[in-house]
């Protein structure tokens, strides 16, 4: 079945109108870096497709204490912004230069397992997702966005329009472990955001990517780290809890036992990095 129609709406209302008109059979694409390989390969055969490149969703702008990232802003735009170094780093470690010029921040939320590295960073940053639908706009925390394996809280008549990232003075870190250095899917990805008073952790968010059906917060590891001074025993315990809480998907990149093992290793490393010291690897 070849594509009979390809729509390029010039605004969000127009895009929503097309979604309403064509219903769940309309495939929505943004950067095309997930959908086009599947279409080219004959695994996905949509009849009607809607592209979002012209819908005016590509601005990245600072608004007070927040960064508003349009859903179709490219990963290259994230690399180029200086307000959130964690996002610039996560984006720069994703795919390749050409792909980053095409792939979008919003699309990264929908990357199939092992999942998006920018999405993992956004989770550590406590980002919120703005969704537009026939009834208007709603905002939900990213923690509520993913509901299972390849499923999200987005209804079939809704679109993600932007992602809101709070700006603050927290210390952040990002580690991605892939099979090779460049253009690699992740074995595991960890992103961290912490606020510290001297060496005491006042608050911490740890996000794990590629080791579960979607990026997850490591809440048990966070609980032991919060209030500590990142002592070696605390880091040991947090790393062990993180490895327990991983729910890895085995695939061609890595087996589930290896992902679980590497979860422990990289959570340890990122906590040591936050503490400002290098350490031995478990």
């Amino acid at each position, binding site marked *: 079945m070849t*594509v009979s129609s390809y729509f390029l709406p010039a605004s969000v209302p127009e895009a929503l109108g097309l979604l309403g008109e064509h219903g769940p059979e309309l495939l929505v694409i943004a950067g095309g870096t997930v959908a086009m390989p599947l279409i080219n390969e004959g695994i996905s055969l949509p009849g009607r497709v809607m592209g979002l490149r012209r819908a005016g969703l590509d601005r990245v702008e600072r608004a007070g204490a927040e960064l508003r990232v349009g859903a179709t802003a490219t990963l290259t735009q994230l690399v180029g912004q200086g307000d959130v170094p964690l996002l610039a780093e996560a984006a720069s470690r994703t795919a390749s230069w050409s792909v980053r010029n095409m792939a979008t921040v919003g699309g990264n939320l929908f990357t199939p397992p092992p999942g998006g590295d920018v999405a993992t960073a956004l989770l550590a940053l406590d980002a919120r997702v703005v969704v537009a639908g026939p009834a208007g706009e709603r905002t939900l925390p990213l923690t509520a966005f993913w509901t299972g394996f390849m499923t999200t809280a987005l209804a079939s008549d809704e679109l993600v329009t932007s992602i809101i990232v709070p700006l603050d003075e927290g210390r952040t870190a990002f580690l991605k472990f892939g099979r090779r250095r460049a253009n690699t899917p992740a074995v595991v990805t960890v992103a961290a955001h912490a606020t510290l008073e001297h060496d005491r952790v006042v608050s911490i968010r740890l996000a794990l990517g590629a080791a579960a059906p979607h990026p997850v917060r490591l809440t048990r590891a966070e609980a032991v780290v919060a209030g500590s001074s990142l002592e070696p025993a605390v880091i040991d315990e947090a790393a062990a809890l993180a490895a327990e809480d991983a729910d890895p998907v085995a695939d061609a990149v890595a087996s589930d036992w290896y992902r679980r093992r590497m979860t422990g290793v990289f959570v340890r490393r990122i906590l040591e990095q936050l503490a400002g010291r290098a350490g031995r690897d478990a």
Partner: protein
Amino acid sequence: MASVIVGFKLAGREVEVMASPLATLQQVLRTQLGHTSVKDGCRQGGCGSCTVLVDGEPMLSCLLPVQDIAGRSVTTLEALTPAEGLHPVQRAFLDANGFQCGYCTPGMEMLAVALLEHNPQPTREEIEDALGGNVCRCTGYEPIIEAITAATGSREAGR
């Protein structure tokens, strides 16, 4: 199935093509416009041999619906090759033995052109990072990196 007419700039000239709705820039460039320097390697975005420049920025034409670039400026190797002689990047690749089978070469050269436009004196690491999405099965990459280093015209670049 309704074809559409898409206009864009190629090699400094306006072109118009008729294409099926989700036809990719790769398909249009290769089969309708004869720009076969744009290779058809994987159609998965994994090899980089279809790399072209859109308004100067490298993109993978196999994943790019041609309608998305309507009105924009597209550059391929054919577009860069002068009527006589060679583009400096082509000359640098030739002099450095920067290709064997030549299949990856157009993609590598498009990246080199874009890189040097953004960053005339890239370090070796910056060159490697820029090439990260393009696969070469022949050269082991070293001659390609040397070619790009030489194309900067500087002994300081490529360190």
